[in-house]
Protein backbone atom coordinates (compact mmCIF):
# COMPACT_ATOMS: atom_id res chain seq x y z
CA UNK A 1 0.00 0.00 0.00
CA UNK A 2 1.24 3.42 -0.81
CA UNK A 3 2.58 5.52 1.98
CA UNK A 4 0.12 8.04 3.14
CA UNK A 5 1.40 11.53 2.68
CA UNK A 6 0.61 13.65 5.66
CA UNK A 7 1.50 17.24 5.59
CA UNK A 8 0.41 20.37 7.32
CA UNK A 9 0.75 24.02 6.67
CA UNK A 10 0.58 26.16 9.75
CA UNK A 11 0.64 29.65 8.48
CA UNK A 12 -1.07 30.37 5.23
CA UNK A 13 -1.58 33.98 6.11
CA UNK A 14 0.58 35.18 3.28
CA UNK A 15 -2.06 37.40 1.83
CA UNK A 16 -3.65 38.66 4.97
CA UNK A 17 -1.84 38.22 8.23
CA UNK A 18 -4.53 38.61 10.84
CA UNK A 19 -2.45 38.66 13.95
CA UNK A 20 -4.11 37.91 17.26
CA UNK A 21 -5.28 40.96 19.10
CA UNK A 22 -6.75 40.44 22.49
CA UNK A 23 -9.05 43.28 23.45
CA UNK A 24 -9.53 44.51 26.98
CA UNK A 25 -12.06 42.79 29.21
CA UNK A 26 -15.72 43.67 28.70
CA UNK A 27 -17.38 46.21 30.86
CA UNK A 28 -19.78 43.72 32.45
CA UNK A 29 -20.29 44.88 36.00
CA UNK A 30 -19.89 42.00 38.41
CA UNK A 31 -22.73 43.41 40.49
CA UNK A 32 -25.20 42.42 37.75
CA UNK A 33 -24.30 38.74 37.84
CA UNK A 34 -26.01 36.30 40.15
CA UNK A 35 -23.94 34.43 42.68
CA UNK A 36 -22.78 30.95 41.79
CA UNK A 37 -24.85 28.26 43.44
CA UNK A 38 -22.49 25.44 44.34
CA UNK A 39 -23.96 21.95 43.96
CA UNK A 40 -24.96 19.95 46.99
CA UNK A 41 -22.19 17.64 48.21
CA UNK A 42 -22.20 14.50 46.10
CA UNK A 43 -23.28 11.23 47.72
CA UNK A 44 -21.74 9.17 44.92
CA UNK A 45 -18.53 7.48 46.07
CA UNK A 46 -15.43 8.61 44.26
CA UNK A 47 -12.28 6.57 43.85
CA UNK A 48 -8.71 7.31 42.94
CA UNK A 49 -5.80 5.41 41.47
CA UNK A 50 -2.29 6.59 40.83
CA UNK A 51 -1.31 6.83 37.19
CA UNK A 52 0.26 9.48 35.02
CA UNK A 53 0.19 7.65 31.71
CA UNK A 54 -2.38 9.21 29.36
CA UNK A 55 -2.70 6.05 27.29
CA UNK A 56 -3.32 4.05 30.43
CA UNK A 57 -5.95 6.54 31.53
CA UNK A 58 -7.62 6.36 28.15
CA UNK A 59 -7.63 2.58 28.13
CA UNK A 60 -9.00 2.32 31.65
CA UNK A 61 -11.72 4.84 30.92
CA UNK A 62 -12.76 3.17 27.68
CA UNK A 63 -12.42 -0.47 28.62
CA UNK A 64 -13.99 -0.25 32.06
CA UNK A 65 -16.49 2.42 31.04
CA UNK A 66 -15.58 4.56 34.02
CA UNK A 67 -17.64 7.68 34.56
CA UNK A 68 -16.96 11.01 36.20
CA UNK A 69 -13.30 10.71 35.32
CA UNK A 70 -11.08 13.58 36.39
CA UNK A 71 -7.42 13.31 35.47
CA UNK A 72 -4.85 15.25 37.43
CA UNK A 73 -1.09 14.98 37.26
CA UNK A 74 -0.29 11.62 38.79
CA UNK A 75 -3.80 10.36 39.51
CA UNK A 76 -7.28 9.90 38.16
CA UNK A 77 -10.55 10.10 40.04
CA UNK A 78 -13.66 8.28 38.94
CA UNK A 79 -17.03 6.88 39.89
CA UNK A 80 -17.45 3.11 39.76
CA UNK A 81 -19.93 0.43 40.68
CA UNK A 82 -18.89 -2.72 42.49
CA UNK A 83 -18.12 -4.59 39.27
CA UNK A 84 -15.96 -1.83 37.86
CA UNK A 85 -14.20 -1.41 41.16
CA UNK A 86 -13.46 -5.12 41.34
CA UNK A 87 -12.06 -5.08 37.80
CA UNK A 88 -9.79 -2.13 38.57
CA UNK A 89 -8.43 -3.99 41.59
CA UNK A 90 -7.96 -7.16 39.55
CA UNK A 91 -5.75 -5.15 37.23
CA UNK A 92 -3.46 -4.51 40.17
CA UNK A 93 -4.35 -0.94 41.04
CA UNK A 94 -4.49 0.25 44.59
CA UNK A 95 -7.83 2.01 44.87
CA UNK A 96 -8.49 4.76 47.37
CA UNK A 97 -11.92 6.16 48.17
CA UNK A 98 -11.89 9.95 48.22
CA UNK A 99 -14.28 12.70 49.23
CA UNK A 100 -15.88 14.29 46.13
CA UNK A 101 -15.57 17.64 47.85
CA UNK A 102 -11.80 17.48 47.44
CA UNK A 103 -12.03 16.28 43.83
CA UNK A 104 -14.82 18.22 42.12
CA UNK A 105 -13.94 21.77 41.27
CA UNK A 106 -15.33 24.89 39.65
CA UNK A 107 -13.86 27.82 37.77
CA UNK A 108 -15.51 30.97 39.10
CA UNK A 109 -15.11 34.68 39.56
CA UNK A 110 -14.32 35.85 43.07
CA UNK A 111 -14.99 39.50 43.82
CA UNK A 112 -11.75 41.09 44.96
CA UNK A 113 -11.41 41.46 48.68
CA UNK A 114 -8.25 41.29 50.70
CA UNK A 115 -5.17 39.69 49.21
CA UNK A 116 -4.48 36.82 46.86
CA UNK A 117 -2.54 35.15 49.63
CA UNK A 118 -5.73 34.68 51.58
CA UNK A 119 -7.16 32.71 48.68
CA UNK A 120 -4.01 30.72 48.15
CA UNK A 121 -3.98 29.81 51.80
CA UNK A 122 -7.29 28.07 51.15
CA UNK A 123 -5.74 26.07 48.30
CA UNK A 124 -7.36 28.17 45.60
CA UNK A 125 -5.58 28.60 42.25
CA UNK A 126 -5.71 32.09 40.80
CA UNK A 127 -6.06 31.80 37.04
CA UNK A 128 -6.62 35.40 35.99
CA UNK A 129 -6.70 38.81 37.59
CA UNK A 130 -9.35 41.22 36.42
CA UNK A 131 -9.94 44.70 37.75
CA UNK A 132 -12.69 43.88 40.21
CA UNK A 133 -12.44 40.14 40.49
CA UNK A 134 -10.20 37.12 40.24
CA UNK A 135 -10.94 34.03 38.20
CA UNK A 136 -10.03 31.04 40.26
CA UNK A 137 -10.16 27.27 40.34
CA UNK A 138 -11.15 25.68 43.59
CA UNK A 139 -12.42 22.39 44.93
CA UNK A 140 -16.03 22.51 46.02
CA UNK A 141 -15.03 22.25 49.66
CA UNK A 142 -12.59 25.15 49.28
CA UNK A 143 -15.16 27.27 47.49
CA UNK A 144 -17.75 26.60 50.19
CA UNK A 145 -15.28 27.91 52.72
CA UNK A 146 -14.82 31.07 50.66
CA UNK A 147 -18.57 31.61 50.60
CA UNK A 148 -18.69 31.05 54.34
CA UNK A 149 -15.98 33.68 54.71
CA UNK A 150 -18.11 36.19 52.85
CA UNK A 151 -16.56 36.09 49.39
CA UNK A 152 -18.91 36.60 46.44
CA UNK A 153 -18.57 33.87 43.83
CA UNK A 154 -19.99 34.52 40.36
CA UNK A 155 -20.00 32.67 37.05
CA UNK A 156 -17.32 33.34 34.48
CA UNK A 157 -18.19 34.80 31.09
CA UNK A 158 -18.29 32.50 28.04
CA UNK A 159 -14.90 33.76 26.89
CA UNK A 160 -13.16 33.73 30.25
CA UNK A 161 -10.51 33.42 31.49
CA UNK A 162 -8.80 35.74 29.05
CA UNK A 163 -5.14 35.26 28.26
CA UNK A 164 -2.69 38.15 27.93
CA UNK A 165 -0.44 38.83 25.01
CA UNK A 166 3.10 37.97 26.02
CA UNK A 167 6.62 37.91 24.64
CA UNK A 168 9.30 35.62 26.00
CA UNK A 169 12.86 35.57 24.72
CA UNK A 170 14.89 32.41 25.27
CA UNK A 171 18.25 31.24 24.03
CA UNK A 172 17.64 27.66 23.01
CA UNK A 173 15.12 25.48 21.24
CA UNK A 174 14.89 23.43 24.42
CA UNK A 175 13.71 26.50 26.28
CA UNK A 176 11.09 27.12 23.59
CA UNK A 177 9.79 23.66 24.40
CA UNK A 178 9.92 24.34 28.13
CA UNK A 179 7.78 27.42 27.59
CA UNK A 180 5.39 25.45 25.38
CA UNK A 181 5.03 22.84 28.10
CA UNK A 182 3.32 25.45 30.23
CA UNK A 183 0.49 25.12 27.73
CA UNK A 184 0.59 28.72 26.68
CA UNK A 185 -0.85 29.61 23.30
CA UNK A 186 2.18 30.20 21.10
CA UNK A 187 1.59 32.24 17.93
CA UNK A 188 5.12 32.57 16.60
CA UNK A 189 8.70 31.66 17.40
CA UNK A 190 11.24 33.87 15.67
CA UNK A 191 14.80 32.59 15.59
CA UNK A 192 17.51 35.19 15.18
CA UNK A 193 21.17 35.02 16.16
CA UNK A 194 20.60 32.39 18.77
CA UNK A 195 17.66 34.18 20.34
CA UNK A 196 14.20 32.70 20.12
CA UNK A 197 11.42 35.24 20.52
CA UNK A 198 8.15 33.65 21.46
CA UNK A 199 4.95 35.60 20.93
CA UNK A 200 1.80 34.18 22.34
CA UNK A 201 -0.96 34.42 24.87
CA UNK A 202 -0.91 33.19 28.43
CA UNK A 203 -3.16 33.25 31.43
CA UNK A 204 -1.96 35.10 34.51
CA UNK A 205 -1.56 31.72 36.19
CA UNK A 206 0.78 30.60 33.45
CA UNK A 207 2.69 33.88 33.50
CA UNK A 208 3.20 33.50 37.24
CA UNK A 209 4.55 30.01 36.77
CA UNK A 210 6.80 30.94 33.88
CA UNK A 211 8.28 33.75 35.96
CA UNK A 212 8.69 31.47 38.94
CA UNK A 213 10.63 29.13 36.67
CA UNK A 214 12.99 31.94 35.74
CA UNK A 215 11.59 33.05 32.39
CA UNK A 216 11.29 36.75 31.67
CA UNK A 217 7.77 37.37 30.44
CA UNK A 218 6.95 40.71 28.87
CA UNK A 219 3.24 41.35 29.00
CA UNK A 220 1.78 43.62 26.34
CA UNK A 221 -0.74 46.19 27.51
Amino acid sequence: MSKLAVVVIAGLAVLACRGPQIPPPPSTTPETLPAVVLPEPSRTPRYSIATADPDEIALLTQQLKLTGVTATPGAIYFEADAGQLSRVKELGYQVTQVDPEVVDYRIVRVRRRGSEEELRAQGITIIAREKTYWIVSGKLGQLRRLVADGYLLQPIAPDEPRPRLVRIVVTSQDDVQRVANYQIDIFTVADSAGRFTINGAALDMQIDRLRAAGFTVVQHP
Partner: protein
Amino acid sequence: MRTTVIATLLGMLASPLTAQIDFTHFKNMTDVTAAMTNIQTRFPAIARVQTIGTSIDGNPIQAIKISDNVATSEPSEGAVVLIATQHAREWLAAETALFVAEKICEQYGPNAEVHADVDRLEIYIIPVANPDGYIFTWLDGINQNGTEWRKNRRHNAGGSFGVDLNRNWGFQWAAVPAPADMNGSYGDANETSWTFYGTGPFSEPETQAMRDFLATLPNLKAFEDIHTFSELYLAPWRYTSLELPPGSQTLEALANRQVAATAAVHGHTYTRNLYRSSGGAIDYVWN
Protein backbone atom coordinates in the same frame (compact mmCIF):
# COMPACT_ATOMS: atom_id res chain seq x y z
CA MET B 1 -15.02 52.08 -18.91
CA ARG B 2 -18.28 50.84 -20.46
CA THR B 3 -17.08 47.25 -20.18
CA THR B 4 -16.28 47.79 -16.54
CA VAL B 5 -19.72 49.21 -15.82
CA ILE B 6 -21.46 46.34 -17.60
CA ALA B 7 -19.33 43.81 -15.80
CA THR B 8 -20.14 45.44 -12.48
CA LEU B 9 -23.85 45.43 -13.24
CA LEU B 10 -23.72 41.81 -14.31
CA GLY B 11 -21.87 41.02 -11.14
CA MET B 12 -24.61 42.69 -9.10
CA LEU B 13 -27.25 40.66 -10.90
CA ALA B 14 -25.46 37.38 -10.48
CA SER B 15 -26.74 35.15 -7.75
CA PRO B 16 -24.26 34.57 -4.93
CA LEU B 17 -24.86 30.89 -5.49
CA THR B 18 -23.61 30.98 -9.05
CA ALA B 19 -20.97 33.71 -9.01
CA GLN B 20 -17.36 33.11 -8.14
CA ILE B 21 -16.77 33.05 -4.42
CA ASP B 22 -15.84 36.44 -3.03
CA PHE B 23 -12.50 36.22 -1.25
CA THR B 24 -12.21 39.91 -0.46
CA HIS B 25 -13.62 39.48 3.02
CA PHE B 26 -13.82 36.80 5.69
CA LYS B 27 -16.97 34.71 5.85
CA ASN B 28 -19.11 33.85 8.81
CA MET B 29 -20.42 30.29 9.16
CA THR B 30 -23.52 31.03 7.09
CA ASP B 31 -21.40 32.42 4.28
CA VAL B 32 -18.98 29.49 4.45
CA THR B 33 -21.92 27.13 4.03
CA ALA B 34 -23.23 29.24 1.16
CA ALA B 35 -19.83 29.14 -0.50
CA MET B 36 -19.78 25.35 -0.27
CA THR B 37 -23.26 25.22 -1.78
CA ASN B 38 -22.07 27.61 -4.47
CA ILE B 39 -19.33 25.19 -5.50
CA GLN B 40 -21.77 22.29 -5.56
CA THR B 41 -24.25 24.31 -7.62
CA ARG B 42 -21.70 25.46 -10.16
CA PHE B 43 -19.96 22.11 -10.50
CA PRO B 44 -22.64 19.49 -9.84
CA ALA B 45 -20.86 16.79 -11.81
CA ILE B 46 -17.77 16.84 -9.62
CA ALA B 47 -18.65 18.58 -6.34
CA ARG B 48 -20.99 17.56 -3.57
CA VAL B 49 -21.43 18.84 -0.03
CA GLN B 50 -21.80 16.21 2.63
CA THR B 51 -22.08 16.22 6.39
CA ILE B 52 -19.51 14.09 8.16
CA GLY B 53 -20.63 14.70 11.71
CA THR B 54 -22.08 17.08 14.24
CA SER B 55 -20.41 19.42 16.69
CA ILE B 56 -21.06 19.51 20.40
CA ASP B 57 -23.63 22.29 19.88
CA GLY B 58 -25.30 20.37 17.06
CA ASN B 59 -23.83 22.20 14.11
CA PRO B 60 -22.98 20.13 11.02
CA ILE B 61 -19.36 19.50 10.11
CA GLN B 62 -19.40 19.64 6.35
CA ALA B 63 -17.06 18.49 3.63
CA ILE B 64 -16.98 19.17 -0.08
CA LYS B 65 -16.27 16.03 -2.01
CA ILE B 66 -14.62 16.61 -5.39
CA SER B 67 -14.34 13.70 -7.79
CA ASP B 68 -15.69 12.30 -10.99
CA ASN B 69 -18.77 10.20 -10.32
CA VAL B 70 -19.13 12.37 -7.25
CA ALA B 71 -22.36 10.73 -6.13
CA THR B 72 -20.69 7.34 -6.06
CA SER B 73 -18.25 6.01 -3.52
CA GLU B 74 -15.19 4.66 -5.31
CA PRO B 75 -12.92 3.18 -2.65
CA SER B 76 -10.44 2.08 -5.27
CA GLU B 77 -9.63 5.71 -5.95
CA GLY B 78 -7.12 7.32 -3.64
CA ALA B 79 -8.52 9.77 -1.14
CA VAL B 80 -7.10 13.16 -0.28
CA VAL B 81 -8.40 15.01 2.77
CA LEU B 82 -7.80 18.65 3.59
CA ILE B 83 -9.16 20.03 6.85
CA ALA B 84 -9.10 23.58 8.13
CA THR B 85 -10.08 25.72 11.07
CA GLN B 86 -9.69 23.25 13.88
CA HIS B 87 -8.71 26.46 15.64
CA ALA B 88 -11.74 28.69 15.50
CA ARG B 89 -10.04 32.05 15.13
CA GLU B 90 -7.95 31.06 12.13
CA TRP B 91 -10.40 32.38 9.61
CA LEU B 92 -7.93 32.43 6.75
CA ALA B 93 -7.67 28.66 6.95
CA ALA B 94 -11.35 28.36 6.05
CA GLU B 95 -10.90 30.81 3.18
CA THR B 96 -7.89 28.87 1.95
CA ALA B 97 -9.81 25.60 1.97
CA LEU B 98 -12.68 27.15 0.02
CA PHE B 99 -10.24 28.75 -2.39
CA VAL B 100 -8.55 25.42 -3.06
CA ALA B 101 -11.92 23.72 -3.58
CA GLU B 102 -13.10 26.35 -6.02
CA LYS B 103 -9.84 26.38 -7.97
CA ILE B 104 -9.80 22.60 -8.35
CA CYS B 105 -13.34 22.67 -9.71
CA GLU B 106 -12.70 25.61 -12.00
CA GLN B 107 -9.58 23.98 -13.40
CA TYR B 108 -11.24 20.61 -13.98
CA GLY B 109 -12.24 21.66 -17.47
CA PRO B 110 -9.27 23.61 -18.79
CA ASN B 111 -6.39 21.93 -16.96
CA ALA B 112 -5.63 18.36 -18.04
CA GLU B 113 -3.53 17.62 -14.97
CA VAL B 114 -6.26 18.74 -12.57
CA HIS B 115 -8.81 16.86 -14.65
CA ALA B 116 -6.81 13.66 -14.32
CA ASP B 117 -6.31 14.12 -10.60
CA VAL B 118 -10.00 14.68 -9.97
CA ASP B 119 -10.83 11.61 -12.04
CA ARG B 120 -8.43 9.35 -10.17
CA LEU B 121 -8.94 10.72 -6.66
CA GLU B 122 -11.67 11.44 -4.17
CA ILE B 123 -10.83 14.82 -2.65
CA TYR B 124 -12.54 15.91 0.56
CA ILE B 125 -12.19 19.45 1.84
CA ILE B 126 -13.50 20.46 5.26
CA PRO B 127 -13.28 24.26 5.53
CA VAL B 128 -14.50 24.48 9.13
CA ALA B 129 -13.71 21.52 11.35
CA ASN B 130 -14.72 23.44 14.48
CA PRO B 131 -18.06 25.07 13.61
CA ASP B 132 -19.07 25.94 17.18
CA GLY B 133 -15.83 27.73 17.87
CA TYR B 134 -15.95 29.40 14.48
CA ILE B 135 -19.47 30.69 15.11
CA PHE B 136 -18.36 31.93 18.53
CA THR B 137 -15.60 33.98 16.95
CA TRP B 138 -18.24 35.85 14.97
CA LEU B 139 -20.41 36.80 17.94
CA ASP B 140 -19.17 40.37 18.09
CA GLY B 141 -21.12 42.37 20.58
CA ILE B 142 -21.87 39.35 22.72
CA ASN B 143 -18.33 38.79 23.75
CA GLN B 144 -15.30 40.91 23.10
CA ASN B 145 -12.67 38.26 23.27
CA GLY B 146 -14.42 35.71 21.12
CA THR B 147 -12.69 36.67 17.90
CA GLU B 148 -9.55 35.18 19.38
CA TRP B 149 -11.25 31.95 20.48
CA ARG B 150 -9.21 28.87 19.62
CA LYS B 151 -11.01 25.87 21.09
CA ASN B 152 -14.38 24.25 20.55
CA ARG B 153 -17.28 25.08 22.86
CA ARG B 154 -17.26 22.13 25.22
CA HIS B 155 -18.66 23.18 28.59
CA ASN B 156 -15.97 21.73 30.81
CA ALA B 157 -16.47 20.16 34.22
CA GLY B 158 -15.29 23.22 36.07
CA GLY B 159 -17.47 25.62 34.13
CA SER B 160 -15.03 27.02 31.58
CA PHE B 161 -15.37 26.39 27.87
CA GLY B 162 -13.44 24.63 25.21
CA VAL B 163 -11.06 21.88 24.20
CA ASP B 164 -8.25 22.45 21.72
CA LEU B 165 -9.27 20.04 18.97
CA ASN B 166 -5.75 19.80 17.61
CA ARG B 167 -4.61 18.42 20.96
CA ASN B 168 -7.50 15.94 21.26
CA TRP B 169 -6.59 13.34 18.61
CA GLY B 170 -5.87 9.89 19.88
CA PHE B 171 -2.21 9.34 19.13
CA GLN B 172 0.20 10.38 21.89
CA TRP B 173 -2.66 12.31 23.43
CA ALA B 174 -1.46 14.59 26.27
CA ALA B 175 2.01 13.17 25.88
CA VAL B 176 4.01 16.34 26.31
CA PRO B 177 4.78 16.39 30.01
CA ALA B 178 3.96 19.38 32.09
CA PRO B 179 6.81 20.77 34.18
CA ALA B 180 7.15 19.42 37.67
CA ASP B 181 6.04 22.68 39.23
CA MET B 182 2.63 22.30 37.63
CA ASN B 183 1.73 19.38 39.81
CA GLY B 184 -1.04 19.80 42.30
CA SER B 185 -3.85 22.12 41.48
CA TYR B 186 -2.80 22.86 37.91
CA GLY B 187 -4.77 19.84 36.76
CA ASP B 188 -8.00 21.49 37.80
CA ALA B 189 -7.24 24.80 36.16
CA ASN B 190 -5.89 23.06 33.10
CA GLU B 191 -9.25 23.24 31.35
CA THR B 192 -8.87 27.00 31.14
CA SER B 193 -5.73 26.72 29.03
CA TRP B 194 -6.22 27.58 25.39
CA THR B 195 -4.40 24.37 24.52
CA PHE B 196 -6.47 22.17 26.83
CA TYR B 197 -6.40 18.66 25.36
CA GLY B 198 -9.68 17.43 26.80
CA THR B 199 -10.58 14.75 29.28
CA GLY B 200 -9.48 11.92 27.03
CA PRO B 201 -8.37 11.12 23.51
CA PHE B 202 -11.17 11.85 21.07
CA SER B 203 -13.36 13.17 23.87
CA GLU B 204 -14.85 15.71 21.47
CA PRO B 205 -17.53 15.03 18.86
CA GLU B 206 -15.63 17.08 16.31
CA THR B 207 -12.49 14.94 16.49
CA GLN B 208 -14.61 11.80 16.69
CA ALA B 209 -16.38 12.84 13.50
CA MET B 210 -13.13 13.41 11.65
CA ARG B 211 -11.64 10.15 12.96
CA ASP B 212 -14.72 8.19 11.91
CA PHE B 213 -14.84 9.88 8.54
CA LEU B 214 -11.19 9.10 7.87
CA ALA B 215 -11.86 5.49 8.83
CA THR B 216 -14.28 5.25 5.90
CA LEU B 217 -11.44 6.01 3.47
CA PRO B 218 -9.45 2.81 3.06
CA ASN B 219 -7.29 4.29 0.36
CA LEU B 220 -6.26 7.53 2.01
CA LYS B 221 -3.24 8.97 0.18
CA ALA B 222 -2.80 12.43 1.64
CA PHE B 223 -3.98 14.52 4.54
CA GLU B 224 -3.41 18.20 5.15
CA ASP B 225 -4.42 20.36 8.10
CA ILE B 226 -4.43 24.11 7.49
CA HIS B 227 -3.74 26.63 10.22
CA THR B 228 -2.64 30.24 10.44
CA PHE B 229 -0.63 32.38 10.95
CA SER B 230 3.03 31.65 11.53
CA GLU B 231 4.08 30.75 7.98
CA LEU B 232 5.18 27.29 8.98
CA TYR B 233 5.16 23.94 7.30
CA LEU B 234 4.93 21.23 9.92
CA ALA B 235 5.07 17.49 9.41
CA PRO B 236 5.07 14.41 11.67
CA TRP B 237 6.22 13.71 14.23
CA ARG B 238 4.97 16.68 16.13
CA TYR B 239 4.98 15.00 19.53
CA THR B 240 8.67 14.19 19.59
CA SER B 241 11.91 15.31 18.04
CA LEU B 242 13.76 12.25 19.28
CA GLU B 243 12.74 9.95 16.46
CA LEU B 244 11.84 10.24 12.82
CA PRO B 245 8.52 8.93 11.61
CA PRO B 246 8.32 6.08 9.13
CA GLY B 247 8.49 7.50 5.64
CA SER B 248 10.31 10.57 6.85
CA GLN B 249 12.10 10.94 3.53
CA THR B 250 8.78 11.13 1.72
CA LEU B 251 7.54 13.70 4.18
CA GLU B 252 10.73 15.70 3.82
CA ALA B 253 10.48 15.71 0.04
CA LEU B 254 6.83 16.78 0.16
CA ALA B 255 7.64 19.49 2.65
CA ASN B 256 10.43 20.87 0.52
CA ARG B 257 8.24 20.88 -2.56
CA GLN B 258 5.42 22.68 -0.82
CA VAL B 259 7.74 25.23 0.80
CA ALA B 260 9.30 25.91 -2.59
CA ALA B 261 5.92 26.17 -4.29
CA THR B 262 4.68 28.66 -1.72
CA ALA B 263 7.86 30.71 -1.98
CA ALA B 264 7.61 30.74 -5.77
CA VAL B 265 4.17 32.32 -5.65
CA HIS B 266 4.39 34.68 -2.72
CA GLY B 267 8.09 35.04 -1.95
CA HIS B 268 7.54 33.83 1.58
CA THR B 269 9.74 30.97 2.69
CA TYR B 270 7.91 28.95 5.29
CA THR B 271 10.03 27.57 8.10
CA ARG B 272 9.79 24.07 9.46
CA ASN B 273 9.99 24.25 13.20
CA LEU B 274 7.84 25.51 16.02
CA TYR B 275 7.63 23.41 19.15
CA ARG B 276 6.51 19.91 20.02
CA SER B 277 2.87 19.28 20.69
CA SER B 278 0.92 16.09 21.04
CA GLY B 279 -2.58 14.88 20.24
CA GLY B 280 -2.55 16.59 16.86
CA ALA B 281 -4.31 15.53 13.70
CA ILE B 282 -1.27 14.91 11.52
CA ASP B 283 0.47 12.60 13.99
CA TYR B 284 -2.72 10.58 14.40
CA VAL B 285 -3.28 10.22 10.68
CA TRP B 286 0.32 9.39 9.92
CA ASN B 287 0.36 6.77 12.65
